[in-house]
């Protein structure tokens, strides 16, 4: 991947990523630079020279490895020598079978599968004195070839295609046929192919299982070759067994004897039986060798030419980090979806066409590719765990997959998942795989909004000068959930701003800001509140946990490479114990390696290693408190010393002591005691408990009181020395209420609601208190006002009024009304019209007296709508009157108001008018304008009632009517605003003022 994909490789690119995977493998040899050569013949010639001169770097590199361990070791020859004795050609098939690779006809082209060109092992194993020469020969040849391939991309392509041709000929079928196949199938195939490839790699490394079989077989072979019950054809010596059976033991030549002796002496340092551990080790090494040849990427993780066991300085976690796409342990769908997203950037970043929808029609793969994922989703439903991927994909599929610039609609990918699953690794690997240079910004960097801005702009708009292969940048924002909120907001703006500026103007300046590089964000907790804006625009990839078996296989590979003795079961247990955290598993293994070179199931089970403080959800904790764990099967160490039977399946111990410990562990890990307590408190009564006498409940409640007291003390005095005692309450509650049944646990909302309601009430009460005028100090303060006055006040403010006009109210009603109004004004209360939740208007007290001190089942203010309306108006009037300037006029004003309210007082009209004229404008109320003039009073007074009879108003009423007429009301200037007329904004202007 040292150059971008170009036009010529479009086909390959569009095709399958897997091709690139294959391509990747030889590239691992980049480090070994053998110099250019253009043809295989030349290479061969060179190789010969190098072999003779023994100067090749590659030669040295691997010779050191081979000669010190693998092929040189006598044990290896032991496997095959029997076969050689009887059947010189037998080794080949055996090897082929073991390595699971058919010997293809195209030996010369199998560059990616060097196995095919690999010389048969027995060829190497010829018992000559100078065994190193052919060995070197073989190894150098291999490496030479691979090195050549890496350096010659052009030629490699041909090789590659040829290679693929015979490996995956089905991908070269007729386009028509291809079209006919559904996209799903094709995607399936692609995935299956990757999985197949992985499986092969895995099989080749599964040495332990094969080892058992092969060991037995070798033993059997050995017996068959050297012992016989009948008289054999080879030279023999007869022996008699204790059961009088006769055996014929093979006689060997002196040369052979010599070799055996050598072998024995060489094996001195090795312990164990003839074919025991020593052979296992041989097998490991043999397999390793084969594997290295067959699948270079996984093998050559350590490019340094030293033996792995010597290399102790490095952390294994770092050393065995996946370097290539195919090494990734994470879920294949996850990997692919992210890679697909990254590939969608190709058009913008590399300026070359990726599967944009229209172009796909001709290339006839892109449409498939873009829709594959959708259809695939639908069928398997696998993407459903991947957050909004599916929906968003569907939405994109509706319009276009890419925006005008050819960028994907989601400019940011957000990887989320618990730690140790390889999110960072995936992001790095995939970015590199797609041809990017990774720029990582993580928690250790300065992530203030300014620094963030700088990093983002530098990363997306510039390219590093020092970057020799001129790759474009891909920004990886690691651990973004810890970034400040402003930074994330900036990121969101940065990402979406590009669209706006583009939309606004087509100018070059606008396009300058457009984001042209992919950004990958990584977080642990996707529901972090700071990430909310990002979550909505990002392409969210959530990480499913890694398969324990798959992880264990990888661990096994590492164990082999590091010569750590272990077995598959132990590794599975380790993986499970660590919650499939790759990092912690590898670290644990390294720890054991440093200790004693052996990792057994016992170690894993005994040790607390690899166990991390996993965060548990609140519901898990409550579940653990309210539920007795059912005894479950568990691997447990037995007392016997036999290593083979160290693991035993037993039932977990469910004694009280264990339960107590469990609860303490769980509660301790969660830590949020206050919320946990609240949760237990609100749920414990729902648990099924045989507690007829309330003794258990009483005890539980005593503990609640105790923990409350503790928490109060801690909060008040900041005395955290008593904090540890908080957790014992949970133990008591567990012992009291836990059952085997699955507990129904609801989230505790009651406490929260209570707090909210209290706050609300307090606020209303405060506003009520603020409104109380100085003339109503007798209602008390604080609690007295709330508890004594407010409930009674509601009664006092609920007079019984009939729904008639004010003038028609009885005397008592008039009195009550006036009293109510006075009280309300004193207390600063009023009625305001608000729209209720149902949509109709209601009059509500302001501040809301009704909600204060109101209990379900008790009447509040019993005033009907009409009365409230009436009172509201009168209260406003009264307020205005009180606010009127003090002095003589105020006195009159109140008197007139009283007259108005009482309905009938004999105040002379002229005086009224004078008062009204003196009132400022805003204090005057609108009065109906008299239709007729003063000269037609009798006409006016002739009013008729419903039945047409003439009624006569009393003179007093007439006076009152007159009092209402207002000089200013008569003024001709009215303002019309929206739906009504108003003379409130009005000023008398004389013409001479204007002139």
């Amino acid at each position, binding site marked *: 991947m040292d150059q971008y994909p170009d036009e010529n490789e479009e086909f390959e690119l569009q095709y399958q990523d897997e091709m690139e995977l294959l391509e990747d493998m030889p590239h691992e040899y980049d480090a070994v630079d053998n110099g250019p050569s253009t043809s295989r013949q030349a290479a061969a010639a060179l190789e010969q020279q190098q072999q003779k001169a023994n100067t090749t770097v590659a030669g040295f590199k691997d010779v050191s490895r081979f000669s010190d361990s693998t092929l040189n070791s006598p044990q290896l020859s032991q496997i095959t020598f029997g076969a050689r004795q009887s059947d010189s050609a037998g080794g080949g098939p055996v090897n082929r079978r073991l390595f699971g690779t058919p010997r293809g006809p195209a030996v010369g082209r199998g560059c990616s599968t060097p196995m095919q060109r690999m010389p048969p092992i027995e060829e190497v194993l010829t018992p000559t004195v100078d065994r190193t020469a052919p060995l070197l020969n073989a190894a150098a040849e291999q490496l030479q070839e691979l090195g050549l391939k890496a350096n010659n991309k052009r030629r490699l392509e041909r090789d590659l295609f040829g290679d693929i041709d015979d490996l995956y000929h089905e991908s070269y079928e007729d386009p028509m046929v291809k079209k006919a196949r559904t996209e799903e199938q094709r995607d399936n195939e692609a995935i299956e192919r990757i999985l197949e490839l992985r499986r092969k790699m895995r099989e080749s490394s599964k040495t332990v299982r094969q080892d058992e079989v092969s060991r037995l077989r070798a033993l059997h072979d050995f017996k068959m070759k050297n012992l016989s019950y009948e008289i054999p054809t080879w030279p023999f010596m007869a022996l008699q067994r204790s059961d009088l059976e006769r055996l014929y033991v093979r006689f060997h030549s002196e040369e052979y004897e010599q070799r055996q002796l050598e072998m024995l002496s060489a094996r001195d340092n090795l312990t164990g039986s003839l074919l025991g551990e020593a052979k296992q080790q041989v097998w490991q090494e043999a397999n390793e060798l084969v594997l290295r040849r067959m699948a270079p990427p996984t093998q050559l993780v350590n490019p340094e030419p030293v033996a792995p066991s010597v290399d102790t300085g490095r952390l294994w976690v770092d050393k065995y980090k996946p370097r290539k796409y195919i090494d990734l342990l994470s879920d294949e769908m996850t990997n692919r979806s992210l890679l697909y997203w990254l590939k969608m950037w190709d058009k913008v970043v590399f300026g070359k066409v990726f599967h944009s929808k229209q172009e796909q029609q001709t290339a006839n793969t892109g449409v498939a590719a873009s829709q594959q994922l959708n259809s695939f989703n639908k069928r398997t439903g696998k993407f459903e765990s991947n957050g909004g991927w599916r929906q968003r994909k569907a939405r994109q599929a509706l319009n276009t997959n890419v925006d005008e610039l050819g960028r994907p609609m989601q400019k940011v990918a957000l990887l989320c998942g618990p730690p140790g699953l390889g999110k960072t690794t995936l992001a790095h690997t995939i970015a590199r795989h797609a041809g990017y240079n990774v720029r990582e910004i993580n928690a250790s960097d300065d992530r203030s909004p300014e620094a963030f801005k700088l990093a983002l702009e530098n990363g997306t708009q510039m390219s590093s000068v020092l970057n020799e292969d001129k790759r474009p940048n891909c920004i990886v924002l690691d651990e973004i959930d810890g970034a400040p909120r402003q930074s994330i907001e900036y990121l969101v703006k940065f990402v979406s701003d590009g669209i706006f500026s583009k939309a606004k103007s087509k100018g070059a300046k606008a396009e300058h800001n457009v984001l042209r590089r992919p950004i990958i964000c990584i977080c642990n907790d996707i529901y972090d509140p700071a990430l909310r804006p990002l979550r909505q625009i990002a392409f969210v990839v959530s990480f499913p946990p890694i398969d324990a078996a798959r992880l264990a296989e990888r661990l096994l590979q590492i164990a082999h490479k590091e010569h750590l003795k272990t077995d598959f079961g132990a590794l599975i247990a380790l993986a499970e114990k660590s919650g499939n955290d790759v990092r912690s598993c590898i670290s644990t293994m390294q720890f054991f390696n440093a200790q004693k070179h052996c990792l057994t199931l016992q170690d894993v089970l005994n040790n607390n290693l690899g166990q991390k403080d996993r965060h548990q959800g609140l519901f898990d904790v409550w579940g653990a408190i309210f539920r007795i764990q059912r005894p479950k099967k568990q691997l447990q160490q037995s007392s016997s010393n036999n290593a083979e039977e160290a693991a035993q399946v037993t039932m977990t111990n469910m004694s009280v002591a264990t339960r107590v410990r469990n609860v303490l562990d769980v509660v301790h890990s969660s830590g949020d005691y206050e919320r946990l307590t609240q949760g237990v408190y609100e749920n414990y009564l729902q648990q099924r408990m045989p507690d007829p006498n*309330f003794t258990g409940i009483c005890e539980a409640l005593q503990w609640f009181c105790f923990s409350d007291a503790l928490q109060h003390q801690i909060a008040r005095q900041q005395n955290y020395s008593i904090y540890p005692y908080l957790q014992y309450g949970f133990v008591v509650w567990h012992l009291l209420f836990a059952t085997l049944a699955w507990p129904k646990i609801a989230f505790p909302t009651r406490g929260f609601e209570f707090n909210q309601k209290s706050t609300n009430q307090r606020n209303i009460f405060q506003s009520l208190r603020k409104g109380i005028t100085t003339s109503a*100090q007798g209602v008390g303060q*604080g609690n007295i006002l709330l508890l004594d006055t407010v409930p*009674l*006040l509601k009664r*006092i403010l609920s007079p019984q009024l009939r729904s008639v006009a004010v003038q028609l109210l009885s005397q008592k009603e008039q009195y009550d009304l006036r009293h109510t109004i006075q009280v309300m004004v004193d207390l600063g209360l009023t009625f305001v019209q608000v729209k209720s939740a149902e949509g109709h208007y209601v009059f509500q007290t302001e501040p809301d007296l009704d909600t204060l001190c109101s*209990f379900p089942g008790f009447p509040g203010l019993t005033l009907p709508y009409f009365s409230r309306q009436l009172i509201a108006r009168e209260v406003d009037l009264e307020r205005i009157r009180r606010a009127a300037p003090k002095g003589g006029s105020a006195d009159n004003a109140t008197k007139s108001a009283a007259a108005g309210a009482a309905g009938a007082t004999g105040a002379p009209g002229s005086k009224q008018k004078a008062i009204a004229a003196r009132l400022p404008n805003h204090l005057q109320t609108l009065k109906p304008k008299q239709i007729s003039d003063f000269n037609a009073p009798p006409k006016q007074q002739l009013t008729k009632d419903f039945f047409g009879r003439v009624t006569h108003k009393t003179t007093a009423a007439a006076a009152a009517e007159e009092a209402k007429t207002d000089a200013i009301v008569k003024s001709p200037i009215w303002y019309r605003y929206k739906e009504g007329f108003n003379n409130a904004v009005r000023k008398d202007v004389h013409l001479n003022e204007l002139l």
Partner: protein
Amino acid sequence: MALWVDKYRPRELSKLDYHKDQAENLRNLCKQSDFPHLMFYGPSGAGKKTRIMCLLREMYGAGVERLRNETMNFTTPSNRKIDIMTVGSNYHLEVNPSDAGMYDRTVVIDLIKQVAQTHQIDVNGQREFKVIVISEGDELTKDAQHALRRTMEKYVATCRIILSVNSTSRIIPAIRSRCLGIRVPAPSEAEMIAVLQNTCKREGLVLPPELAKRVVEKSERNMRRALLMLEASKVQQYPFTAQQQIAELDWQVYLRETAAQIVSEQTPAKLEKIRDRLYELLSQGVPPNLIFRGLVEQLVNNCDMSIKAKTLEYATQYEHRMQNGAKHIFHLEAFVAQFMNIYKKFLAELVMTDDF
């Protein structure tokens, strides 16, 4: 001045309706044109505030009645802004520091300093000190009280403090010793009936003596409550009848119903319903100790003699514990559960003895 409580509140010491001897003493106190710090204590609705206002009027004249509302701002050391509403005249200032909650210490210190450090400009004919009235003084935290004790001595030349408290037990001894305690006991029933009758007469209403007696009983000898109840009754139904319904306090009724439910059924499900009701009471601002008291009174009334003592014992125990905690609901529920426990046991024993 529309509510009867305000309208017919005595404004002068000479016009007080009861505790006339005490009124005389207060007048004598004022005659020396100076008085020490005072602490009026007595149950709610006994007339403490009335007496304080009368005393101030006696001291400063009618000017104290020209009240104005004022909101004062304070900043706590932790940079939190608090608004405190005060009512005051030129001569005095009335505050309720419990509004500030746990920050009342700041309020006490700042407020008193503010007031005390400003001397009266117009000295002739006026007193040289101002008065600070602290209502609900027993709600002051210990911190605030300790802050108060020094300022009380330091600024004694320029300000006097009048505390109005319900119970002296929550006032630290240092403050108690610095103040002249004046006990205002709750009025007797006869005195209250007289006040009610007097009020009705001035309102031009006719109050049947039975009704007056019933109102006084319902009001638990709380003058304010009695007047409000009477007024509410008047609104509900005027020509008064002897047996007419008297408006009661909702929360008291609610609490009574809760207690009745506790006695009626003892199951976890019921306990949960009770919890809801307790939550309701607490969220409406009813203080937990009042809830405790109301519950205990009702429960003790409703249960058998043999478990009364136990109920009271547990009530004291849980009420005491509640003071050390913050989540009152736990303690209330614990008490309810404990009562249910002993009540159930009692019922079971009853059944046993009946059977055999």
